[in-house]
């Protein structure tokens, strides 16, 4: 899998400059800097407790950074509320499925498209009359493969279906910077493969930042990989370069990389 030529990516979609986050006296994120270009797919990997979810929470505005700046499409989003950040074009999914459990699949998706279609907090129109919202929700449903479960209440879906719905909700608003937090967590091998194909399809042309543990997924999906260890990015490069990096191997990948290298050399790579 060869990464796309770096120069084909556009301006910086997301930029982190020396971001730090402390909880009391413990510093979780220690001066992380990251530049993600528009249209790029970046995977963040790292051992448990490295701060990957915290980083997502900082970017999406769920918690404030202690210092440093975060820029979305060149605009500083530090201190903005999550819904303000979302309106500026960033959307995220969650590690623990975060959908609207008592609404149906269709309603889940329809709610997610309302703001981007300009409907605001209105109570003077009827949902059934919003043709564009209904059409878009239908489109999304078919895209994520849940159109047969249109009226099923979300909490009655299977786990994989709920994860798919979550992705649907995440991309529904048309955000161009997508954050996916461990999208394939808890899925079987076959489910994962199908799910990654779905993610690739729905994030076509968008900037994607994803936290992942599954190395197969990471090396197949990402244009660049950022390795986060103890709140610091120790490597940010193409998959091959990361795989070959001694520092990364030492800090994180360990034997799994050694095996991969052996496997690669056996194939005459």
């Amino acid at each position, binding site marked *: 899998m060869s990464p796309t030529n770096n120069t084909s990516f556009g301006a910086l979609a997301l930029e982190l400059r020396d971001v730090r986050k402390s909880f009391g006296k413990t510093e979780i994120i220690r001066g992380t800097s990251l530049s993600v270009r528009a249209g790029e797919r970046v995977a963040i990997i790292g051992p448990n407790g490295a701060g990957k979810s915290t980083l997502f929470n900082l970017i999406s505005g769920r918690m404030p950074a202690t210092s440093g700046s975060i820029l979305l499409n060149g605009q500083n989003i530090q201190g903005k509320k999550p819904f303000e950040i979302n309106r500026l074009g960033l959307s995220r999914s969650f590690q623990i499925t975060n959908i609207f459990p008592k609404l149906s699949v269709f*309603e889940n998706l329809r*709610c997610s498209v*309302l703001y981007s279609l300009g409907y605001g907090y*209105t109570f003077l*129109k009827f949902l059934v009359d919003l043709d564009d919202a209904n059409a878009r929700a239908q489109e999304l449903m078919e895209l994520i493969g849940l159109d047969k479960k249109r009226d*099923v209440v979300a909490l009655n879906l299977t786990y994989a279906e709920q994860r798919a719905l979550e992705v649907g909700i995440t991309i529904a608003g048309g955000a161009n910077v997508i954050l996916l937090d461990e999208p394939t967590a808890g899925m079987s091998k076959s489910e994962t493969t199908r799910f990654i194909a779905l993610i690739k399809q729905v994030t076509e042309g968008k900037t994607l930042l994803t936290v992942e543990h599954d190395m197969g997924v990471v090396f197949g999906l990402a244009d660049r990989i950022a390795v986060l260890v103890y709140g610091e990015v120790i490597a940010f490069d193409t998959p091959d370069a990361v795989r070959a990096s001694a520092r990364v191997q030492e800090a994180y990948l360990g034997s799994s990389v050694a095996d991969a290298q052996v496997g690669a050399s056996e194939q005459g790579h």
Partner: protein
Amino acid sequence: MNRWNARIGSLRLWAVFAALMLLAPKVFNSGLSVTMLSQMGVAIVACLSYNMLLGQGGMLSFGHAVYTGLGAFVSIHALNMYSGSGVLPVSLVPVVGGLAGMAFAALFGYVTTRKSGTTFAMITLGMAELVFAMSLMVPEFFGGEGGVSGNRMAGPATWGITFGPANQVYYLIAVYTLVCVVLMYAFTQTPLGRLLNAVRDNPERVEFIGYNPQRVRYTAFIIAGFFAGISGGLGALNFEIVNAEVVGAARSGGYLLFTFLGGATFFFGPIIGAVLMVLAFVLLSEFTQAWLLYLGLVFMVMVMVAPGGIASLIMLNVRVSRYGKLRALLPAYGLMAAAAVAPLLAATALVEMVYHRQLNASMGTQVAFFGMGLDTGSAGCWLAIGAVLVVGGWTFTLAQRRFAVHWDLAQEAIERETQRAGGAL
């Protein structure tokens, strides 16, 4: 599918509802009945507006009476000040109440809806106490001990309607009730209505689809305040007097209790709750002094057994019957119902007897119970009823277990069918 169904609901159903309201005073035509029907209309609007917060928005408020009550006060002042001269037609007084309710909701709600969940509940409690305590301090507005009275026959009578007779007031209330119910249903079919549900289910997720959950809650709070104020205005016209208890904790508690009892998870649940509320306050309190105890106990049992209220029980059975399984359950249902009679009667008899001994001992030892006389002085009587309670309770448990077995079987069968059909409903 007819689009109007998805906008304001089934027109057929509303027609039936309207017909029922039209015919009710003809069937129940005593003076007491007509007043009760009027009160039911008022209560329906109040409880539905309350459920906009509780059931649709997940906002547990202990102070909804503030908005119905303030709406009532403003209405009666408006009636006194502007209806005599004909500036404000009596029939529009409730709208004034609605606007007042909306204004107060906008004012208080700004602070109240900043938080959600348990904190929100406590804040509404505090604000309710604040308003009630202030009601004693501003007699110019709240009328002091005696409250504020008004005359709904004020102003010119259009088409001969003076609103003097109870019937005329009833029909005015009925029209308002129908319109408000339809409007509140329509609200649930709008973007804000659906977003309110989303905020109830997952406020954090709502932020990540571009909406501010606080603003959703605040806007809904104001709309609920509008309908609450209309209810207050209707009540003011009905009783022609408003005093401080309309903003009191007891009334707020009543809205909560009965909306929950009726069922907060379905739109029509609060309607059932409102009807029960009027029946309890007006009728039940006449039959027994223990009615508040019964209310508390029934409520507690409901929370433990059926937190979705009576509406959810109805809908569960509707679902079962839609799959054709209800007929098979009827024998088990019947047995359980029959077995419940004896222990329930025995328990209420015991309660009535205890109450009689404690509160009415001076009136002798006999207490009337469904036409029978129970002797609270006779130990034999106590033992006999106690025995009925124990035996009856045991029989009921057996019948209930048998029913549960049949019910679970029916549910499993339904599960299998839905799996086959692909998971929809």
